[in-house]
């Protein structure tokens, strides 16, 4: 089966600024994204865990599949929006089947 090469951008970030990242993703013209819950982990800022009652204190993961050109435009925007917040941006190569679904 024929597949198409795309970039997969995964962002793990504080849910307080989810709206900011989603705005950047939509402004750059990505055709979609997926958000995932994350429940805890450990990183540069130490260990963390979702604490139930305080909204916006947790983190979430956002996954965007994009063409290499779009990914190149999008990543600096995401990075700027995340200034001052803890989180990571990861980019990897993926193969998709329905190329038309991803701009």
């Amino acid at each position, binding site marked *: 089966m024929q597949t198409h090469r795309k970039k997969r951008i995964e962002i793990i970030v504080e849910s307080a*600024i989810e709206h900011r990242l989603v705005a950047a993703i939509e402004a750059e013209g990505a055709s979609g994204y997926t958000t995932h819950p994350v429940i805890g982990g450990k990183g540069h800022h130490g260990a963390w865990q979702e604490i*139930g*009652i305080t909204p*916006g*204190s947790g983190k979430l993961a956002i996954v965007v599949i994009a063409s290499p050109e779009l990914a190149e435009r999008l990543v600096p925007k995401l990075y700027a929006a995340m200034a001052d917040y803890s989180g990571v941006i990861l980019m990897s190569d993926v193969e998709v089947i329905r190329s038309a679904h991803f701009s």
Partner: protein
Amino acid sequence: MASIAQAAAENLLSPMVLFFALGLAAGWAKSDLAIPEAIAKALSIYLMMSIGMKGGIALAENGIDQRFLLLCLAGILLSFLLPFLAYVLFRRLGGIEPVSAAAIAAHYGSISIVTYIAATAYLREAGLAFSDQMVAIAALMETPAIMAGLFLAHRFGAPAAGTAAISANRPPLGRMAHEVFLNGSVTLLIGAFVIGWLTGGKGGESVAAFMFDPFKGVLCLFLLDMGLLAARRLAQSGLPRPGTLLAGILVPLCGAGVALLIAALLGIPAGNGMLFVVLGASASYIAVPAAMRLALPRADGGLAITLSLAVTFPFNIVLGLPLYAAMAQALLQP
């Protein structure tokens, strides 16, 4: 003095405090006891709905008098001014840098609705009369502190050379206002208050079996979860430094003192006065952290939550409630 000690001992042996202590102990011992997050959220929704509706019903039955309006105004002012005092104490005693101290100060100006709810349960147990419409003042006191915290951060958070003082991104004021005024607990509290006010005592009676009777049991379950959360929070972040810890106890006591003074000046009776004192003493861990995270990302949000949730909240529940009630009874008219 003996009566304060006795009240404190009685409070320690109330189911409310014992379940909170059970949560603390279980969390500390790393027991796998956990309240599923969705259930904890539902419990807090239930408590807000119940307390909001009770407040609305009380307003419908008692009406508003001038003294109550004055107390509302005083509450707003207190919430705005307390952060200035808290800022100084956290800076001096805790040695906390300005932006974080400002964010923490905002938590202490604002209020904890669960502490307020526990205080109403305490008063009922102690047989001290109060008016349920005090919850309106709790709602009013949630937000002014946030403005004060932002002001402090912008005034004293001096920029390091060449960097933005507070954040690389402009504070998203619209988004923050949305977060603050439409956050779930505020929306529900005010909504239920209005519903209670519209339906009055008759509406209250029709839902009492669900809305009011199980209140205390639900509160115990919720406090169990709060104990677990506080213990996990401490395990995650460690105990704050002694100076910071001291400020986390002194700031609520100062807030309580100022609130008591206001209640005395306005001639507020002891029950309502005690609730006002609790509002002055409690610190937010719901509305304010979310707003501060958006507006002051460089502030140490983790420390603020540790202080309000794992230091001040337990202090208020275990020792604060009997102390504040005794203060109010000693200084205010019955």
